[in-house]
């Protein structure tokens, strides 16, 4: 059972969230400066979800991620240098520059990749969970997916199989209210994606995705349940992305009102956690500031590493197609 959260875990949670925030803010700027090619889907605003889940996992627990995957990788232990190198398309990146933002992965950390296909993750996570059990380990799999992804047939088939086989997998729905530029009310006739859990014979839980401790507790219960062999859970985290669907300013569409954005930014998961930590005397504002500075330096070092890294050589083009 999930014990009462310790100060150590709270500080761990905080540090991971700050690492995501500063990495993403920096990546966004680098993209606008033309240093990062392709599409970049920033995780800013949703940090509490990845971190609240990931602090329960180790490198043998698998996760599948989404097109919005930097946060998941960082929370799972990803290193800035190899991450920036990948976003830059350098040979030193996590995927040797072949995957980029949408396919960044780290098998050694149990991170089965970001995925450019919406709904691509759940079936793969179900396979990883199946494999965990088949190989007689007690490890679990967590699959992150959005509210929009919950309308893909792949999610349905994966969830049904997980429920049927009682697999050790947690379906973490990051409901940020939109699939690209389409509001949830315009892509499904329900408010809680968790309502779908009953159709798969699994519990559905809704939690405030901006409250890291709430996510931590709910995720802990779902993961423990999975580890005990009692089957999957659909954990819906209500959250919000602070920037546009892709990039920072995106296409400059006005599909979200300023009030709505302001409301959610007022519930910044990092600000809320820092308030709590200082109130409880666990981390003072000054100490928090120090964490931000430390992480900022690490991020800058990562950028420098990427900047100085070589591009892949031509022979890399036809490597890694087959084992």
């Amino acid at each position: 059972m999930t014990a009462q959260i310790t100060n150590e875990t709270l500080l761990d949670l905080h540090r991971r969230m700050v690492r995501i925030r500063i990495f993403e803010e920096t990546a966004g700027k680098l993209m606008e400066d033309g240093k990062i090619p392709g599409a970049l889907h920033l995780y800013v605003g949703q940090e509490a979800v990845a971190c609240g889940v990931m602090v329960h996992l180790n490198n043998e627990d698998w996760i599948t991620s989404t097109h919005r995957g930097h946060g998941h990788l960082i929370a799972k232990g990803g290193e800035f240098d190899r991450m920036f190198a990948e976003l830059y398309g350098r040979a030193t990146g996590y995927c040797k520059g072949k995957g980029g933002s949408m396919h960044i992965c780290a098998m050694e950390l149990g991170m089965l990749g970001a995925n450019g296909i919406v709904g691509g993750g759940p079936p793969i996570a179900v396979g990883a969970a199946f494999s965990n059990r088949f190989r007689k380990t007690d490890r679990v799999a967590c699959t992150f997916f959005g509210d929009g992804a919950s309308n893909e047939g792949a999610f349905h088939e994966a969830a049904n199989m997980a429920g049927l086989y009682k697999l050790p997998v947690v379906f973490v729905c990051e409901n940020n209210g939109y699939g690209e530029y389409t509001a949830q009310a315009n892509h499904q006739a329900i408010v809680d994606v968790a309502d779908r859990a009953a159709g798969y014979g699994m519990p559905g839980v809704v939690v405030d995705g901006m409250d890291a401790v709430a996510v931590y507790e709910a995720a802990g219960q779902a993961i423990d349940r999975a580890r005990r062999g009692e089957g999957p859970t659909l954990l819906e985290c209500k959250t919000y992305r602070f920037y546009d669907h892709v990039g920072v300013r995106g296409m400059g569409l006005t599909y979200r009102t300023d009030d709505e954005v302001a409301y959610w930014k007022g519930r910044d998961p990092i600000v809320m956690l820092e308030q709590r930590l200082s109130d409880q005397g666990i981390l003072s504002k000054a100490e928090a500031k120090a964490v931000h500075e430390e992480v900022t330096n690490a991020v800058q070092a990562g950028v420098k590493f990427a900047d100085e890294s070589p591009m892949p050589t031509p022979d890399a083009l036809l490597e890694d197609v087959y084992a």
Partner: protein
Amino acid sequence: MAEAQAQPRKLPYVAAITDGVREILKEQDNAFVIGEDVAGAGSVYGYYKGLLEEFGPERIYDTPISEEGIMGLGVGAAATGCRPIVDLMFMDFIAECMDEIANQLAKMRYMFGGHARLPVTVLTMAGAGASLAAQHSQSLESWLCHLPGLKVVMPTTPYDAKGLIIAAARDDNPVFVVLNKVSLAMTGEVPEGAYEIPLGKANVVRTGSNYTIVASGRMLHEALKAAEKLKELDVDAEVIDPRTLQPFDIDTVADSVRKTHRVMIVHEAVRTGGIGAEIAAQIQEQAFDYLDAPVVRVGAPFSPVPFSPALESLYVPNADRIVAEAKQQLGL
């Protein structure tokens, strides 16, 4: 086919798409547009911008992220009297709804003994070169060309984009309009009003006497560049844009080969199993005795599309590679 009474005007490829769809929505009461983020956002590439305001929410619909459901809706709506224009954001996503495409849309009319019409027009975005990596950069037209019941077009210019979309939407069969994301900004002449580019007819874009290049999609422009460079080598290349890949206008291509005796096929798709293979096979079937050299195919190498610009630039065929391959073929 009112090409005549239309007066010249320059538009980018992206606006030409809008223009073609607009003409159809004006012309066909039973036509509507449906797809992911096509209404409110006007598509992620903006080519439906303004249509929601112009035609209202009854003619253009945003959908959930459900490609099977979207394509299936198109099939059911078409079979029952509508003329859906279905948008598949990226061509890579035909894989999401291949059952609806291959087992329902392409076959329903035949399985039903001719008792159904499927006037579905599918607009989808293909092509590499935008650093979008392996799942957002593919050109999978050869899958579609292997499916009896479908038609497939690939517009290479703004003029063609509008004219082929109109022809596709007027056709009573399922037609896939394979667009190219890197071409969206390219501008060209686009007449006002409705005009058709006939399906199944190739376009001889550049006439030449001693070499033929068949180039589809964005590769047409690379082929035209290459043709200029080849001039310096006394190679006078005829450049043909098939425009429609299914049905394929082999006659125009074979006639050219009978004149030039040497031919190259260029496409962005993976070379192995790409439509270039079918075209090459048909050319040697039709013009064997006229060939002075093997038919050469230029396409992407046998790997997924890499993300890194350093690799992607090597991956996508270009004018230099066309010239190099031509020189080798011609022994220059």
